[in-house]
């Protein structure tokens, strides 16, 4: 398990692009890894947690500072489509 969080920079991207970027990166990581998604679209506050719930990942925190949002996610068990 990595202690540092991978960073996904999705600032200036509008939803659902932050979700797509997070989905792509998380797909390359191992269960237990951490990823921090930086966004500026407030829609990400809803969409990333919703996507994580559907795919079994855990949102550890969401922090909004000025116009920037940081969503920290712990990668869940690897799940193959159809299984």
């Amino acid at each position, binding site marked *: 398990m990595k202690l540092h969080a991978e960073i996904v920079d999705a600032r200036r991207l509008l939803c659902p692009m932050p979700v797509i970027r997070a989905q792509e990166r998380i797909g390359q990581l191992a269960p237990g890894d951490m990823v921090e998604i930086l966004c500026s679209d407030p829609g990400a506050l*809803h969409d990333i947690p919703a996507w994580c*719930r559907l795919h079994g990942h855990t949102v550890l925190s969401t922090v909004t500072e000025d116009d920037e949002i940081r969503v920290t996610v712990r990668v869940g068990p690897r799940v193959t489509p159809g299984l």
Partner: protein
Amino acid sequence: MKRHIARTGSVLGAKCVSTEVLHVVAGARMDRPRFNRDQEGLMPARKAVALISGGLDSMLAARLMQDQGVHVEGLNFFTGFCVEGHTHAIRKDKRARPLRNNALWSAEQLGIRLHIIDVVDEYKDIVINPRHGYGAHLNPCLDCKGFMVRKAREWMETHGFDFIITGEVLGQRPKSQRRDTFPIVARESGAFDLLLRPLSAKLLPPTRPEREGWVDRERLLALNGRGRKPQIGLAGTFGFNDYAQPAGGCCFLTDENYARRLSDLWQSRGDKRYDLDDIMLLKVGRHLRVSPAFKLIIGREEGENRFLRGYRQRFTHLAATDYEGPLVLVVGEAGEDGLMLAARITARFGQGREAGTVCVLAQVPDGTEREFHVTPLPSSELPPEWYL
């Protein structure tokens, strides 16, 4: 962890009698059928990939399949033109509406995984060169459906799924959902008879999932036409409330104003080209085609100004320094006179519109700055035909 549940239910009076072994996946709130019982005994549940737009019909189609013990996962394609997400995130005055992504919301209601796929680049060819032409505006619906079903077919093959479902209803859309266009989509996508439309299936020739008994045709529907009553009734039966009801189509290409701006973009470039930033910017602000050489994009409120500020590295931009007002992007080559005119227009849309002189700062992407002291342009000098 597995749990065994005997489930019975009814859909529009059709009794559901399958007994399923449902499966709970760690971390996800999903009950997944792994096996179905047929006359031969237990067999693995069939797997369907559903096109999930975020609207009610695709949700109902997926739910009908789940009711028959089919394992369903959703695909949602991001083309760049989707009504979803963007505009409500940009404009502050739209914040009263929930900032949800309707496709994700639908998937949560259904308890299915949703895979959101970026098709922005591949989709350009569909918008630029639609083989079957455009609908009322710049919406290439028939080509678009064929494209999305083809992408779903590729995904199905990669992931070992059995068939594809959509929420299409016969006769619902004049161009793309007709008895003669349904086979075109099935053929051009390469899905052929692995494409099932559960909401109208009984009015269509049986597909392979029906013929092979993967699904029970008798428990599919025979919806036809533009009416929404049966869908709304069915939504009530399933307990779906608060679903999205888009007024036009599922994307901006059906919107007359948007289509006008896109046509203008292509005309100004001399060819049909675009990138993601181009089509995002078409959704934001007032667009004024001031001359063939350039247009202005004018923020209408703080949310749009903030969004437009993200493009300061790419475009010359102007803002008044002594009054509140919009951020204005110059798209194209304005030249000296054009920049002066842009400054007067910037002043006209700000709080200093009645002032004698307004100071407007213009910044070019390389960081160079110019200050203009201008008289705001009177509205009588703003020809209506400039507005896109």
